[in-house]
Structure formats: C-alpha cells, structure tokens
C-alpha cells in the first residue's frame, strides 16, 4: 500500500471512532445539563439527574429485574451451551453438522422474527409474558455464543489431559469435573459475561415477551417515546458504565485464556 492510502485508511478509522464515540460522549454530557430540555447549548451543569437515577424506584426496580433476568438466563445458557459444545467436540457422528447448524440457528434469526417466534411458542407451552418468558428467550438466544466460545477453547484442550485422568482411575464424569471443566473456566467466564451483556442490553425479546414489569431497555424505550429528558441520559450513562466494565472484564478473561493457550 502506498503512503497515501495508508493515511486515508487511518483517517477513516479515526472518523469511524469519532462516529461511534461522539454520540455516547454527548449523551453522557447531556446528563449534566441543568435544564429539562435536551439539546445544546449546555448553560448550567448539575448532578441532579444522576442523583435522581439512584432515587427513582422505577429505574432501580428495572435495573434489578434486568439483572435477575441476565443472571438466570446466563446460567441456563452456560449450562446448555457447555453441554452442547462438549457433545459436539472431539468426535464425528452422523448428523453432527445438522446439530451444529440447529445450535447456531437462534443467532442468525432476525431479531423481530425471533422475538415473535418465542412469543408464539411461549403461548403454546402456556408461559405467560413476564420474567420467565424473557429468561427463557434470552437463554435460547445466547446458547450459540456460549457454544462457539466453549468449542474454541475445547479444541485447544490436549486429548492427553482427559486420557491421563482416566488412566489414573477417573471415570468420564469425574474426568469432566476435575480436568475438562477447570480448563473451560476462562472461556465460560468470558462467554458468560458476554451473555450477561446481551441479556442486559436486549430490547426486542424483552419487549415482546415482557409482562407488566419493564426491563431497563424497555423502560428507557418507554421513556423515550414519551419525550426526551436528561434523566434518560443519566440512566443511559449508568448503563454504559456498567456494560463497559463488564465488557472489559470479559475481554480480559478471554485474552488471558488466549495467552495461556499460547504458553501451554
């Protein structure tokens, strides 16, 4: 590549970074504005909107509700995703490709369609819209991500580890819990946090499968439809900080795993 195209690409990169970060930065700034109206210029600065977030029981409830949904759906997704990854790794059998395809299916169904398919299915099994319907749909949607992360990790597990455990008297169950599972832990932490983020951020499934109680994104959506206010900025900023911290943690966990795999 010539020097000019390299500079051009560098410019595109930074322009893209600005495109991604400026809206979020403005959103955070606006949360400090001492006025009810969203928009520039910001004349006076206040912390009231942020303080209000932590006193608004509706917001706090939604946050807790989203957190419970996130944790439970992540637990289910981790359990099933790990099980599927283990079943799919290390041997070839008839129908493996089909099983893998079906496993990844929820990840490629467009959002609205997956949401209404779950809505219809929830009705079929008599699951009322509400917390369990949302948990169930989030878990299913997140399973493919867990499977991909865990399978990638599992493919680096030397076959001899499991054989050594069996050689020393461990049956396949004990081998799994004492050798395989500890080896998968970093991938499961990374994948789990990723699931937590996906669940915490999800709007479309929570919206169609939710009952009376809103999750945090559904609450923000409702507030947005009834008009913008700096309060939403403050809530969103809190969400942004929470998710960025979780995301960085997940990234660190996965990166440490790659480094260790390289050392092994």
């Amino acid at each position, binding site marked *: 590549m010539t020097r000019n195209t390299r500079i051009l690409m560098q410019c595109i990169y930074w322009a893209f970074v600005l495109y991604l970060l400026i809206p979020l930065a403005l959103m955070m700034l606006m949360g400090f504005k001492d006025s009810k109206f969203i928009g520039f210029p910001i004349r006076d600065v206040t912390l009231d909107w942020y303080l209000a977030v932590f006193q608004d029981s509706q917001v706090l409830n939604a946050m807790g509700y989203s957190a419970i949904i996130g944790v439970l759906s992540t637990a289910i997704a981790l359990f099933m995703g790990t099980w599927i990854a283990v079943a799919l790794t290390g041997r070839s059998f008839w129908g493996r490709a089909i099983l893998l395809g079906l496993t990844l299916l929820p990840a490629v169904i467009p959002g609205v369609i997956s949401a209404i398919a779950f809505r219809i299915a929830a009705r079929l099994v008599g699951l009322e819209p509400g917390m369990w319907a949302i948990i169930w749909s989030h878990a299913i949607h997140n399973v493919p991500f867990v499977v991909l992360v865990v399978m990638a990790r599992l493919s680096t597990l030397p076959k001899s580890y499991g*054989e*050594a455990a069996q050689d020393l008297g*461990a*049956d396949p169950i004990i081998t799994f819990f*004492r*050798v395989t599972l500890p*080896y998968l832990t970093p991938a499961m932490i990374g994948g789990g946090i990723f699931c937590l983020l996906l669940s915490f951020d999800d709007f479309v499934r929570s919206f169609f499968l939710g009952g009376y109680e809103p999750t945090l994104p559904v609450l923000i959506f409702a507030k947005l439809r009834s008009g913008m206010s700096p309060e939403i900025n403050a809530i969103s900023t809190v969400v942004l900080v929470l998710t960025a911290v979780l995301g960085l943690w997940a990234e660190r966990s996965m990166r440490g795993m790659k480094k260790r795999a390289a050392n*092994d």
Partner: protein
Amino acid sequence: MTDAKDPIVRIEGVTKSFGSFTALHEMNLNIASGEFVTFLGPSGCGKSTTLRILGGFEKPDTGRVILNGQDVTALPPNKRNVNMVFQDYALFPNMTVRRNIAFGLELKGMGQQAIKARIDELASFLELTAYLDRRPDQLSGGQRQRVALARALAPDPALLLLDEPLGALDAKLRAQVQVELKAIQRRTNKTFFFVTHDQEEALTMSDRIVVMNKGRIEQDGTPEELYFQPASRFVAEFIGETNLLSGRALPGDQGAAGFDWQGHQLRAAATVGKTAPAQGAVTASLRPERIQVQRDRPTTENAVQGQVVNRLFKGHRMLLDVAVGDTVVQAYTDTDRGRDLADGPVWLGWNASSLTLLAD
C-alpha cells in the same frame, strides 16, 4: 526372553486396524515382571498402538490382553492397574504438583494422611520435594517429566507405560534422564513398557528391545543381540550404522556361513532369528567399528583390499570411506591411524562373527 516364566502381561493374537490401515498384525508377546521393555520402530510401526491397547485407550479388533492373569481386553483405562507417562506429560495445569500426584491416589479411595505420606515418599525419591506446591507451568522440562513419572508411579501400577517421554527434552538432559530412568526402574522393580523411535535411547536403557515394523515384530531380544545379530535388514539399518553388502550365500562350514561378495569368499556368522536363505542372493551387515583398517594384510578371518576415497573427522575417531570394487565400505578407525591411511591401498579385515547374513 519371550518365554518368560512369570509374565505380568500377555498379548495374545492382537490385531488392530484403523480403517484400511492395519496397525497391528496378530501380535503375540509376553512381558516378565520387573522387565524394562522398549518398543522401538519408526512412526506408524504399531508401537504406540500397542501401548494404547495396553493402557485401554484402544480396543483390539481381535485377541486378548492378560494383565496379572486377568483378561483386561474390555476394561476402560480407569479400571486397569496400569499407568502411563504421556508424551506431553499431560500434567493438569489447574493443579499443583502435589494435587497432580494425589489424583490417582484419591480415586483409589486412600485416606488423606496416607496420600500425603505417599506423596512425600515419592517426592523425596524423585527429588521433587521443593516443587510440590508449584504449578506445572512453573517447572522445567526435566522437572515436569519427573512429576509425570511420580504421578504415574503413585498408584502402584502393575505396569508402567512410557510414551516417548524424553522427546521434549534437549539432547544433554535426555542423556542424563536416560540414566536416571533406568535407575528408577531398577530401584522400584516396576515393569516398564517404553516406546520410542530413538535407537540410542532404546539401547541405553532396555533389558529387552522389541523392534516393530509395519505392524509386526521384527526382532525381540537384548540390546546386544539386536546390535550384533540383527535378524533382518530392517533391524540392521534401523539400529546403529552399518554396511550392507549384497552378495550370494554359500554353503558354510565349521559353524560359520559362507558369503560370496565381489568374488571374495568370506566367512559369516551362523544366522540367528529369522533364517537367511542358504543359497542365492543375500544381504550381509557389517558394522563399521568391527572392521580393522591397516596397510598390511590383517590376520582376521576375512580380509579384502580397497582404496580410501574419503575421510570424515569425528573427533576421537575417523570414518573412512573405502572403495572395494564398485562398493564403498565405511569403517571406523582411531584418528591417528586414519591420518596415516590418507591415500593408497588399504586392507580391511574382520572376523566371521561380525558379518551377519540377513533375511529381507
């Protein structure tokens, strides 16, 4: 050796195929208690398959494996009293050295104090006491190898399998570990089943070597037998350096075989192992270090004349290429004499016992 009185392992008619590839053909073998047996051969010869069948990781297609008088052919690895040192050691990375060694002991249902005592004992024996609380990634290659050995010895197996455990070590360390490993085997009096493709390693450590080729046992004997009386061309070529001479077998006399090579009527050792044909075209093996090279005719049973065409300096000795007719024979000589023999005709001499007629 094959008819050991007290076989701890009996392999009876074991065949194993992977798809269209036959890894083992009808193998029969007995291993005596306390023996250090090495399976030697190039990759794909079936030595690792034999090891994995003994460990329980592969099931033979036909035949039986008898361990201590019990048929274990169908038993999974966790139900066999056999332990293995893996090629990559397979130390559990999430456990300390102590936990690694304890792994097999815990699953035997031993009490925690008894386990601790046993680990301390093994650790002092294998000089691991200082490393018990480290993790495998904090150890050197040699230390890992000893941990793998300690872990496999800990549950007191009837048979210890070692799958090329020295392959990951550098040359200097490997030589040292070979000596240690042999000493450990003597002191514990365990039966070691060692697999390697390195002939030098096999010669150094083993009581008995089984040379494998293409799924069959090529030769089974002590290191000396294999080296000096190779049963086949394959063994002669695989173990050590040798000259292969193509000639014709002649009727022998007085406990020696006859061999016609380039018109020379030579005396060769009476054949052992697989019988070489008594008549017709045959190959003979002659080790370079068994040949005397000198200016005047030697007094050995066989002597031929040749011309030095090349010299290779190897420090304390020298390898000479001597042209005899249209063949080049390699011979070792000490360095000083090699210098004197730079050019001109030389005599090569050797005794009948050094020339072995081979089956193909």
